[in-house]
């Protein structure tokens, strides 16, 4: 039996969604602090532009495409869940998960290639930020995929359909972070 506390909604926003917004608020300052530090260093070290020129824009762009597309399937899953179609929502969530896994695999090959060319996390400040920021983001991607798997499992049985929207919001946020990481780490050279 759920506590009655979980059924109330004095603010008008459902509790689950409210909590996700607070999670995102606290994530904004985590990534914000890291990226603010990176931008300060980047602006005061013109030589980092040279280091950055070794990143592969095409791989970054491909991963951006993958994440943007997975965001589309996440929002379509939300739409299906709202219409009460748990099966369809679950299927779209699986597509989203596939996007997340593709992202992580591509990232793995990309890092492998860069490390084999001698660009490691301790090479210099730029590469330290490159691996730390993208790594922290990749952890969020992986966590999102795992949670999405759990949500899809219940959604398939038409249970807890509101969770589809919650994981979707989180997924769009992960997408949003990448939208900023992409120009910061790949395009600005």
């Amino acid at each position, binding site marked *: 039996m759920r506590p009655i506390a979980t059924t109330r909604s004095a603010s008008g926003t459902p509790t689950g969604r409210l909590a996700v917004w607070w999670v995102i608020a606290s994530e904004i300052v985590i990534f914000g602090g890291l990226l603010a530090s990176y931008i300060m260093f980047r602006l005061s070290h013109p030589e980092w532009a040279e280091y950055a020129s070794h990143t592969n824009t095409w791989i970054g762009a491909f991963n951006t495409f993958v994440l943007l597309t997975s965001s589309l399937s996440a929002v379509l899953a939300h739409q299906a869940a709202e219409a009460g179609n748990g099966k369809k929502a679950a299927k779209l969530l699986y597509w989203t998960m596939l996007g997340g896994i593709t992202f992580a695999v591509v990232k793995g090959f990309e890092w492998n290639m860069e490390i084999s060319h001698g660009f490691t996390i301790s090479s210099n400040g730029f590469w330290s930020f490159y691996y730390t920021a993208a790594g922290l983001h990749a952890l969020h991607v992986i966590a999102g995929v795992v949670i999405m798997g759990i949500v899809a499992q219940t959604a398939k049985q038409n249970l807890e359909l509101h969770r589809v929207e919650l994981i979707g919001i989180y997924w769009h946020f992960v997408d*949003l972070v990448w939208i900023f990481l992409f120009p910061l780490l790949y395009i600005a050279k």
Partner: protein
Amino acid sequence: MSEHAHPNYFKIWAWLLVLLSISVAGPMLEIPVVTLITAFGIAIVKAYLVARNFMHLNVEKKYVVYLLTTMVVFMLLFFAGAAPDVMNQEGDQWYKPKVEAEAAATPHH
């Protein structure tokens, strides 16, 4: 949020991909100002599209938008307070050593 009409998500996705192509193409003109605009200006537009349409901030309660904006403002504040020190390369009694030696050591391919 079942009351609101769903926007055409495919259309927004198509817009996002167009913007992505522009931001990849921008640096090819090799004009720094254009690169800055196509990289970061477009990132902001993309972020706006995702936040507004995919995260449904357009139909969410206003205080959520204010909350998230406040967090971003705090980060700008942090940047404003820290950058004058961190970006300063030389003080009266100290300097940060340049690390060109290491730059030279970075392998090229």
